[in-house]
């Protein structure tokens, strides 16, 4: 039997009224007397369910509605319409029994006391979440070792690097062992090494606690490494919900053929096989990259092997970020 969903969202809408100022000084003066407002549909009728232990990636451009959805799920925003249930609670009720079971981590906001060492925030959270002493010691030691931050616990937060701060944010958010994690851009601004360290940590946390995680990120590597399932949101609407690799089946029109030739081949000759993305000569190596329709890829590869001096040939799927970029740019949703 498949597990019951612990997050249920049905026909969720969240609209904002936004003031529209006319340009220039006259616009400012006019706005003193009369203002025009526009309704922005940040989230527009989306529905989905998430089961315990799932790690789901929210993908979308800036302003697509990802963060707004997370804020509704955490009880910060009042939904304009629709039904939301997390762990059986209506988040808007903000019941302590609910709040003790989840954490919201926002890469651009911090809960750490800026002028005090991170340890002080950990102690405050221990009291707020009523974490027993032994559990606190155990969780803290484990998290501190995993994230390698033992030597910075007693240094003022404002003196820490962004990466160190983010690690401490994670510890503060996880000390009470939440079952549900809402991670909003957790790796934003971090270098690649630190991004990888955080991803590994999030993966380990999911496996150890069977935690349910929703992650938004601008870095496709975060989503690719952590999430099997992806939800794509565009202009407030849900346009895809399924396995990450199904995005390729649904939206990728082409496959990529990477070729290495034993002798020079002209671009014109290659163009009859597909769209030439790259054509170059590096010393004695002649290489090219072709985009060919997915269904014809095998046949085209066979023709290439027959007709041209091919030394090596690879058929690849396009990178997922390129597909998503194409989806958003073409508006083909």
């Amino acid at each position, binding site marked *: 039997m498949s597990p019951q969903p612990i997050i249920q969202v049905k026909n969720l809408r969240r609209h904002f009224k936004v003031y529209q100022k006319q340009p220039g000084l006259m616009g400012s003066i006019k706005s003193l007397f009369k203002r025009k407002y526009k309704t922005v549909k940040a989230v527009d009728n989306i529905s989905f369910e998430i089961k315990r232990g799932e790690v789901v990636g929210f993908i979308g451009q800036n302003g697509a509605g990802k963060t707004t959805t997370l804020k509704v799920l955490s*009880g910060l925003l009042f939904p304009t319409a629709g039904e939301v249930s997390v762990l059986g609670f209506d988040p808007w009720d903000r019941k302590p029994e609910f709040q003790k079971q989840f954490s*919201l981590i926002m890469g651009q906001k911090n809960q750490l006391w800026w002028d005090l060492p991170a340890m002080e925030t950990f102690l405050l959270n221990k009291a707020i979440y009523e974490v027993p002493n032994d559990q606190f010691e155990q969780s803290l030691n484990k998290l501190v070792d995993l994230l390698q931050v033992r030597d910075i616990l007693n240094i003022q937060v404002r003196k820490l690097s962004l990466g160190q701060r983010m690690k401490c944010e994670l510890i503060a958010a996880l000390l009470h062992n939440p079952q549900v994690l809402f991670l909003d851009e957790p790796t934003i601004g971090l270098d690649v090494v630190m991004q990888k360290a955080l991803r590994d940590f999030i993966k380990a946390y999911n496996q150890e606690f069977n935690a349910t995680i929703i992650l938004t990120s601008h870095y496709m590597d975060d989503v690719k490494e952590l999430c099997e399932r992806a939800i794509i949101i565009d202009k407030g609407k849900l346009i895809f919900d399924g396995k990450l690799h199904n995005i390729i089946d649904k939206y990728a029109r082409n496959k990529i053929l990477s070729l290495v030739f034993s002798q020079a081949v002209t671009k014109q000759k290659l163009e009859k096989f597909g769209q030439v993305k790259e054509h170059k000569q590096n010393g004695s190596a002649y290489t090219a990259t072709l985009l060919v329709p997915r269904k014809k890829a095998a046949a085209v590869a066979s023709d290439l092997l027959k007709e041209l001096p091919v030394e090596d040939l690879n058929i690849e799927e396009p990178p997922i970020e390129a597909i998503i970029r194409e989806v958003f740019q073409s508006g083909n949703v």
Partner: protein
Amino acid sequence: MSKYPKLFKYIIVLQQYWQNLFVYRMSFVVWRLRQFLSSFTALSVWSVVFANQKTAFGYAQDEMITYIFLVTVLYNIILSSSLNALSGEIYSGSMSTKLVKPINVFLSLGFQDLAHKILNFGFVILESLILYFIFKPSFIFPNQSYELIFIAWVALAALICFIINLLFGSIGFWSPDSWGPRFLFYIFLDFTAGKLYPLDILPNIIQKIVYLTPFPYMSYVQIQLLLGRLQPNQILPITLTMLAWTVGLILIFKLVWQKGLKNYTAMGQ
């Protein structure tokens, strides 16, 4: 069953508020110096007024100096600047980190306010001793004492002030700037709460208008009670008025806060 006493988390909030305040030693010293100089100025002005006369506005010098001295102490206990940053916190979305936690936001803010007041009180005692030796006021207290009523009135005034500060903070749900209205409030308060002079030196009509606001209940009536300048039959109406202001402001605040929360955009991203 939780092993934690109910208020334990708020005691930690209180302690961390102090820790935060002690980080910047210089601003802490300057803040106390400002309070001290403000009290010193008021006492100096009235000392000058009485230099060539024994009474002014129906007050003898000792009475007036005692009045100003007490109002200085009370002001530090009743008023508080601990919530000055609240509207900015709400407008910028920083409030979100508090709203998602299993903690009562108002109790948490209340304990911050309490931390501020306890600290103020400690320093006011110290500063008052210095002022006492400079101005040497001779306190004149009546024989009949109303300590309990006085304490209750001070507590009610602190509560009224806390709710008014919460209301100013709620402006953050709509606008980043609560400084304008707050500034007006403090200017108005200085003139109508009896900080600079006792209110009974004002013309009758103005006194009547001032009594329609909550401001005279924020220091003036407490000191009048302590100095024995109130009739016993005035105690009940004043108590009821203060209670009415408290309940009324709580109701207004509840409405504003609920509406604000629904309007909250948790901005920033």
